[in-house]
């Protein structure tokens, strides 16, 4: 181990005896300390590492063949970017921790009956069989035939557009119209296809805001937005609190207040981002509120992003109204409106990675279509979906059956909670209910909420999402997804809940 130590002064006799002995000792000490730190010991295991809906594998073992130190080169660990450091160190919320834990000890009726029941994942498993059946009946024709044709004509001979095959855009436009009730039509030329709604939201954010700018987001909101939007774009999210007293509906007055606050703090707000049907509450936005929102963004010269990924997953008597409907009938500047969509929720195909940016702004379309190169949809998947989405009869049947199953499960689940004295905010869409467990908190606050959440996770062995992960300002609300359950699971879930809740009644 060759060490170059600046001892020139000491060696030459300058600095005196004390320094002459002190400095080499100090240097030697620091060197030993440094070498110790860099010997091959695995990094401390980060317990909070996870990502939405994703399991964590065991820590990567360091390869022993590379543990010997080199005689050449720097001993300093090579730096990574501040963005990388942020993602490594981020103290993940209960949302991610809960997901991770349930994947380590998943419930199974036969193999692991005491495992954790996963109610923190907004995945719809209720109607996958219908899709599976269609695939079995149609795959050969739809995939290989189309694929060969497409690969020869489009994929290889010409430069394939990253923002998606035209045929898929056409099919998607039709599908979006169909699944949203048929009261509005979509133009394929305004569609950018991306590998999921996650990159769609990010790419759109890159187009609408500079680092340091902000979006106003009605809260509680989807925990994933914090990662999806903030991480690489540098855009901030400002929650606009909604209240149980108002059924967690958005109040324009609250929006105004947050906008003014941001302005005072010198933060440039660029857009309002809302999810409709909402996540985690599951409410549908009223036509009047949409209208007020359009007025608001027009007045403040902002963009409006409507995340409509759950548009087809409604089950109540209320009908879904897309922001697109208002643009059809009212005279607003369309250039400020953008819609996010995808097939992960409404068609239960999160693995296939299919998302949509729908914009009325041609500059946004131009920029986003170039960004699609970083997140393009795989060709075989596109081919499969062209067939599936064009089968409007199948889609009609699917929508009907899925709505029924969602509605049924919602009713059964919320009834079960009611028996436990837990009321839910009325939902009309999404895969979850928004449950009020505040009366069970030992202390009314985030701490009390997280204690209850931990008990439910560790003792009742059920994973649900606490409102604080969703930036809800009122403690005690929890999101419970019911679409990964079968009807027979519900009594078990309620029994598990009651185990913990009995001992948790606030005094």
């Amino acid at each position, binding site marked *: 181990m060759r060490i170059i130590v600046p001892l020139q002064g000491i060696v030459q006799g300058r600095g005196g005896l004390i320094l002459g002995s002190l400095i080499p000792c100090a240097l030697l000490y620091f060197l030993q300390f440094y070498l110790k730190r860099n010997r091959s010991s695995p990094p401390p295991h980060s317990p909070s590492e996870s990502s939405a*809906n994703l399991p964590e594998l065991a820590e*990567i073992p360091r390869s022993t063949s590379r543990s010997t130190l080199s005689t050449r080169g720097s001993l300093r660990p090579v730096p990574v970017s501040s963005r990388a450091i942020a993602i490594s160190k981020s103290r993940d919320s209960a949302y991610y921790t809960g997901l991770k834990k349930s994947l380590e000890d998943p419930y199974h009726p036969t193999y692991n009956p005491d495992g954790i029941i996963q109610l923190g994942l907004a995945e719809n498993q209720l109607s*996958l069989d219908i899709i599976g059946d269609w695939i079995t009946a149609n795959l050969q024709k739809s995939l290989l035939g189309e694929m060969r044709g497409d690969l020869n004509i489009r994929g290889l*001979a010409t430069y394939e557009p990253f923002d998606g095959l035209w045929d898929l855009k056409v099919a998607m436009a039709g599908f979006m119209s169909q699944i949203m009730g048929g009261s509005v039509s979509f133009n394929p030329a305004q569609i950018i296809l991306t590998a999921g709604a996650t990159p769609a939201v990010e790419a759109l954010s890159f187009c609408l805001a500079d680092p340091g700018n902000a979006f106003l987001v009605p809260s509680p909101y989807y925990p994933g937005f914090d990662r999806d939007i903030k991480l690489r774009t540098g855009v901030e999210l400002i929650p606009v609190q909604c209240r149980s007293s108002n059924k967690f509906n958005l109040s324009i007055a609250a929006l105004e207040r947050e906008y003014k606050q941001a302005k005072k703090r010198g933060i440039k707000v660029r857009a309002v981002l809302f999810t409709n049907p909402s996540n985690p509450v599951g409410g549908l936005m009223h036509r009047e509120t949409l209208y007020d929102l359009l007025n608001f963004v027009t007045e403040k010269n902002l963009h409006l992003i409507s995340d409509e990924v759950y548009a087809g997953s409604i089950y109540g008597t209320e009908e879904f109204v897309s922001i697109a409907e208002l643009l059809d009938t009212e005279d607003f500047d369309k250039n400020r409106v953008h819609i996010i969509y995808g097939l992960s929720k409404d068609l239960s195909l999160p693995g296939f990675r299919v998302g949509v940016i729908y914009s009325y702004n041609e500059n946004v379309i131009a920029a986003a279509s*170039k960004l699609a190169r970083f997140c393009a949809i795989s060709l075989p998947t596109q081919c499969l979906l062209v067939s599936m989405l064009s089968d409007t009869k199948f889609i009609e049947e699917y929508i009907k059956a899925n709505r029924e199953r969602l509605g049924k499960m919602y009713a059964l689940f919320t009834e079960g909670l009611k028996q436990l004295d837990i009321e839910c905010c009325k939902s009309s869409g999404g895969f979850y209910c928004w449950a009020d467990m505040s009366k069970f908190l030992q202390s009314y606050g985030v701490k009390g909420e997280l204690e209850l959440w931990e008990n439910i996770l560790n003792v009742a062995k059920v994973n649900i999402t606490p409102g604080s992960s969703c930036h809800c300002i009122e403690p005690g609300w929890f999101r419970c997804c019911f679409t990964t359950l079968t009807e027979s699971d519900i009594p078990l879930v309620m029994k598990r809940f009651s185990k913990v809740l009995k001992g948790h009644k606030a005094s």
Partner: protein
Amino acid sequence: MANIFGLEAPLSKMAISNAHGEDSPYFAGWKAYNEDPYDAKKNPSGVIQMGLAENQVSFDLLENYLEEHPEAYSWSSGPSSFRENALFQDYHGLQSFRKAIAGFMEKIRSHRAKFDPERIVLTAGATAANELLTFILADPGDALLVPTPYYPGFDRDLQWRTRVSIVPIPCHSTNSFQLTLQSLETAYADAEASNLRVKALLITNPSNPLGISSPRTLLEDILDFISKKNIHLISDEIYSGSVFDATDFVSIAEIAEERSHISSEKIHIVYSLSKDLGLPGFRVGALYSYNDRVVKTARRMSSFSLVSSQTQKTLSFMLSDEEFSLKFIETNRMRLKERHSCVVKELRDSGIECLKGNAGLFCWVNLGEFLEKKNREEELKLWKVILDEVKLNISPGSSCHCSEAGWFRVCFANMSKETLEVALRRLREFSEKIRGRRRSPNGEICT
């Protein structure tokens, strides 16, 4: 209520900048092709696309395989297999697929390096992998060193959203455009002098557009350099399967294994199935890092560019087929070598010099003698003439930031043999026209 102020909600700086680089001739040529594409029967005088580095020579092998093995793409093992696959959005990716890719990469390198599937992060294409690595290794305002000439897409992939700058390292024809330690040192010093913090060196090996792989001695020098400067090395090896003679290619992976763990932590490899398998539309890229933190971070960030679980399943099946993968790699290599030889010979007979290459889907061709003056304007004029009159889209060296005018990248693997012959014939006629020579009309070109 109409917008009474007539104000337009502003877009971001990124959206309105042209850092996407798509206004360059590299992309303009594609547009011309799309508007007037060659077809042997329907449009025999159309533009032949020679600006697209795609690999079509072995597509029949893939087609046959999928026909013979429908299990690869169908969910035949029951409804639960479809269900699982449809719901699978884990950013770790399918383990069987990572294993298959690791194995494939090892076969390409004749097992001279080992790849740990746990170090593979899947992304939707190498484009996403390169951008992802840049986000992880550099902050806005930092810089990456990249030897020229380089793939035009880097300007966009490495700089656009990341706000990181490329510092080009000019390379010259005097030594076949090979990177030297001297030029590395100079470029690094220049960057420092301009107050730019260099965070990494990115090399493409084999090189695009040169079509040459880096010799071992150069790679060792590079590793010493990055060690000394404490910067990262990104080795983009997406053309590794197209090295004509397997023994020619030395991957950074081979040398990384010889180095200490501290040095190798600076090394990251980018791979993709777009070039070697000829499946650009499938969007399969991979990032391989010897640095645990980078792997972890990249995995999380890959949420923005995951590979379709359907595609993972299909390709995992295919690439896990040892016999098929080996046969594919060998056959593909051989066919590319044949094409390359044919193109080089024909160009030579036309009096056009190619850089001596040993890999890739293209030739780096010197048309300098056709220029009135050796500068960028004249090069672009020539490019336009070849596009509009000869009806060939080839890529001008200036779009690859080449320091010398007159060089062009000519792709030969993205078309049928017959189309290639037509293209080469046109090029020969053009060359002769410029030189004032005549040629017998019946000569066969490539047999």
